[in-house]
């Protein structure tokens, strides 16, 4: 069995993207490879220029968003994007864009943040998940 973790990143809000960066860091630290599959709103957060601008929280926690953003700023918490980027420098993390979402939104590779490695179809995602000991839907 490959020593691998797969994250399906469906959500594009700060509260869901933060654990993506942190879990990927932990997996890399423990010697695992990480496959990140970006789809729907998760992929929107990785549009060119978008990662630095995501400030939304999940709708059910919307009232808490200003307080959370304030605390993160005050305590100098690194952004989810920087956390993920640093983890990617330390280990093997591949970031994949969902081909169906790309087509639906009329996006090309040039519209995406440089952290995205490639565009893959769902069958390839299933292969990643099959090889993984951990798969999480975010």
């Amino acid at each position: 069995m490959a020593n691998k973790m797969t994250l399906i990143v469906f959500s594009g809000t700060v509260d869901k993207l933060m654990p993506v960066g942190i879990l990927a860091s932990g997996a890399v630290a423990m010697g695992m490879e990480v496959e990140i599959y970006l789809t729907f709103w998760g992929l929107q957060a990785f549009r060119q220029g978008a990662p630095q601008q995501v400030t939304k929280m999940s709708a059910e926690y919307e009232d808490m968003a200003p307080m959370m953003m304030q605390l993160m700023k005050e305590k100098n918490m690194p952004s989810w994007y920087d956390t993920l980027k640093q983890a990617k420098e330390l280990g093997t993390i591949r970031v994949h864009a969902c081909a169906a979402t790309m087509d639906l939104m009329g996006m090309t590779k040039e519209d995406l943040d440089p952290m995205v490695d490639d565009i893959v179809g769902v069958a390839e995602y299933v292969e990643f998940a099959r090889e993984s000991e951990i798969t999480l839907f975010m």
Partner: protein
Amino acid sequence: MDRTVDARDTFCPGPLMELIRAVKEGEVGEVIAVWSKDAGSQRDIPLWIEKAGHELLAVNEKEEYNEFVIKKLR
């Protein structure tokens, strides 16, 4: 001590990630200290050291943080 990583201002998993970076950059046999006060790394750092095959020489409790002293073995 060959190098000291002051990670007292970072959150989980920041201190662990900074330690890993320092260990990667260092030479085998180097002794590295990491300062951390985040609760996660108090358990994560020893766990990682064991898993990665290095040696935890000491955990020194300071007033507001802990100092982990690691020897790079490989």
